[in-house]
């Protein structure tokens, strides 16, 4: 067992820098570690590029970072439940890159899996195709979608051990395991921390070997 990964909220804030690209787990904030988002708000870092399934809600999830003017660019699949996103997009204050949800997941996976990109038929003949290579394989056309990387991933496990082996209950899994593979540094927020050996290795969804920092958090 290497040195302790247990990290306080203040130590977590010290990892944050202006201009970072951050992947945030969760789907409409379910599976998003809210207390870690609060810490990013408090840190005041700005010009962030965020990669998330969606835009959260105006006062919940990454929506708080957007409302606080800390986000330069958002890469997401759906932003319809946070009107602030449309407002900032239309005024030019924030750039928004809309990516089909399955393509978003695969682009994150591609980075984490060391692939040069993925081929998908999703988006063919739509605005999503603009500027992308169309590749023919076995008689069918596909879009080449390139990997998505990040400096930092902020992810959640319902519970985890002190090595970072975590379990996501229910639909909180979503993008969390994918982001753990795709970012340079991985911060895991978890609501219950267990001793080593207490998490069944057969049901782990977040692998501790990918986790750099563990923060014990509370439900917000």
């Amino acid at each position, binding site marked *: 067992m290497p040195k302790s990964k247990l990290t306080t909220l203040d130590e977590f804030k010290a990892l944050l820098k202006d201009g970072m690209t951050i992947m945030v787990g969760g*789907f*409409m*904030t*379910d*599976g998003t570690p809210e207390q870690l988002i609060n810490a990013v708000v408090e840190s005041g870092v700005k010009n962030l590029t965020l990669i998330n*399934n*969606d835009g959260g809600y105006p006062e919940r999830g990454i929506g708080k970072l957007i409302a606080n003017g800390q986000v330069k660019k958002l890469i*997401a*699949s*759906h*932003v*319809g*439940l946070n009107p602030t996103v*449309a407002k900032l*997009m*239309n005024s030019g204050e924030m750039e*928004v890159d*809309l990516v*089909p*949800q*399955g*393509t*978003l*997941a*695969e682009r994150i*996976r591609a980075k984490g899996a060391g692939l040069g990109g993925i081929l*998908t*038929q*999703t*988006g*063919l*003949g*739509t*605005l*999503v195709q603009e500027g992308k290579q169309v590749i023919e394989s076995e008689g069918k056309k596909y879009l080449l979608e390139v990997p998505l990387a990040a400096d930092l991933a902020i992810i959640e496990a*319902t519970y985890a051990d002190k090595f970072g082996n975590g379990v996501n*209950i*229910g*639909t*909180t*899994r*979503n*993008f*969390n*395991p*994918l982001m753990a593979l795709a970012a340079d540094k991985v911060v895991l927020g978890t609501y219950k921390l267990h001793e080593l050996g207490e998490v069944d290795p057969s049901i782990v*969804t977040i692998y501790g070997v990918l986790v750099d920092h563990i923060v014990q958090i509370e439900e917000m």
Partner: protein
Amino acid sequence: MDAKQIISKRVALELKDGELVNLGIGLPTMVADYLPEGVEVILQSENGMIGMGHIASGPHNRNFTNAGGTSVTILPHGACFDSVFSFSLIRGGHVDSTVLGTLEVDQHGNIANYMIPGKMVPGMGGAMDLVTGSRKVIVVTTHTDKAGNSKILKQCSLPLTGVACCDLIVTELAVIEVTPSGLKLLEIADNTTVEEVIAKTEAPLTLADTIKTFTTN
């Protein structure tokens, strides 16, 4: 029944026992309430669940939600997974039917439902993957918009969600099949006429040999 109920009840007849089905948020979700007796489908929710039950009562349970972020129940045969697996089911042809709403649909089976440039840009979410990968794509919409304009067009004007991907259109007035040679009217509601449906449809319609009717009660 109101238009949404009429559409939901009619779409429910398209789903077959045992199918894996994705229902979009909103009107499509209502289809599950109208499945005929003896027909059970397995509902997939793209945020990472098969075997989705109903909207859950009580406070928000963040551990079991649908793609709209609302708490739902999970049935005894259900399972949860990550987003890569969820969209592997969708793109990989494992989802039998998807039912989704739209802003526009046209005679080529093009669907436009994710943005109105300069006005409304909610994003495509999982819709582009669903219309690309599902074996059958059923579009549900009111036949006309609030101003009375047809929503079934010769050519979509809004940015497309998918090209030539729609198989069937169900409205409160008609069931229309998308064929390689255009739209074919299969059924009309029991409170309308073929003439009214043709008048309210911008795209040209060919008529099935026998036009059936479906109930509005």
